[in-house]
């Protein structure tokens, strides 16, 4: 028991699963009803937002390889110049950089329409490669799972990224790369997430942030 800490610190509230009906609270239209005038969704930015338009999509797979069709994903990212819309960033952006998407109940595919972020300052003056932070909530997930997606066309920056290169097992780093492809005129990054996999090299890296 950490009785000393309890004198000076309040314990963080315990996490619980979002459950199968997380959409009611976070994406009620997907649950099947209209209630709010304004809804938070999976389209980030406006037509005038500077940057390259991209689609990020994929599936989240459980330990049997079955798509998790009830998963809800949120993403957080910088703008095309690498700035976050937050007061901690001195050149705070007009681009909010946040969205949420529930996987399709039939196909299990999630999707975000966003812009490609720029490189972001890291610790000690080192730059981070462009990346998008992900957090996953679902039935059976007791504490939201944090991961990151990097971009397959940023190999040089990825190879120097302080977070990616801090992953001791090089064979696991590929699990954080979204793969760029062209589809019907769209730039699509395909990013499948394996919450559990028999082969440790195939299970997506999740972070204790």
């Amino acid at each position: 028991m950490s009785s000393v800490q309890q004198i000076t610190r309040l314990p963080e509230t315990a996490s619980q699963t979002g459950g199968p009906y997380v959409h009611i609270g976070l994406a009620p239209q997907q649950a099947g009803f209209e209630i709010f005038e304004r809804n938070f969704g999976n389209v980030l930015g406006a037509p005038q937002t500077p940057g390259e338009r991209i689609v990020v999509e994929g599936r989240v797979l459980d330990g049997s390889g079955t798509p998790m069709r009830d998963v809800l994903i949120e993403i957080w990212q910088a703008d095309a110049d690498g700035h976050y819309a937050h007061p901690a960033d001195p050149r705070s952006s007009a681009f909010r950089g946040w969205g949420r998407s529930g996987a399709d109940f039939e196909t299990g595919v999630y999707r975000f329409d966003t812009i490609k972020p720029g490189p972001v300052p890291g610790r000690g003056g080192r730059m981070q490669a462009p990346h998008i932070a992900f957090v996953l909530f679902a039935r059976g997930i007791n504490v939201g799972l944090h991961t990151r997606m990097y971009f397959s066309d940023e190999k040089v920056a990825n190879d120097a990224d302080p977070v990616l290169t801090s992953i001791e097992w090089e064979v696991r780093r590929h699990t954080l790369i979204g793969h760029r492809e062209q589809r019907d005129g769209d730039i699509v990054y395909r990013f499948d997430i394996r919450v559990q996999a028999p082969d440790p090299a195939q299970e997506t890296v999740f972070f204790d942030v």
Partner: protein
Amino acid sequence: MPTDPFGDFVQRDPSLHPPAYAPGYKTSVLRSPKNALISIQQTLTERTAPQFRADELGPLDADLIRNFAKDGMPIGERIVVHGFVKDEFGRPVRNALVEVWQANASGRYRHRKDQYIGALDPNFGGCGRMLTDADGHYAYRTIKPGPYPWRNRINEWRPSHIHYSICGDGWAQRLITQMYFEGDPLIATCPIVRTIPSDEQIRGLVALQDVANFIEMDSRCYRFDIVLRGRRATWFEH
């Protein structure tokens, strides 16, 4: 001691939270990573988070009794739920987005995938949202949710609960949890509650009756405070 308003968050103490793999809650078995989480030094990505404005929310968003009412009021016990969102050092978390969702008084969710026999209430949606004020305070009005059976073991029943999602000021603070009600006998046996490793942490999820804030001839009141991770002190300039 000085605190950088945008500095690192203290590392999360995993003993306060359920493990990913908690076989009493069967769905977690195939949905838990086998590898350990990789601990990273926080960057701007983890120290920042989306900002929300009051004008993005509607005037009834925090009133679950009225925000889906069609031709009358929802059936069930009227309650007010309120509390403070604080960090680990007791500082208020201002402008946090608090989103709540729940079953109706019959234990039925308004969700296309919920097949429970309990009746839907035409006047109850079951979700609400609000921003904390300058003191970190939030409040909403709703109907007390009913318990319901679910598929885990046979005759497993969830205690009455309200789901919470909280977006604080840093991505590292992001939290989803559930609030329970004082005195509910189902809390002690619920496999989802029991994923939490300590009784003290379970008590932290149980809202207490706040008799002083009952509304006469109208509603009971429950108090539920939430603690998010706090930013660490900076001992030395670097």
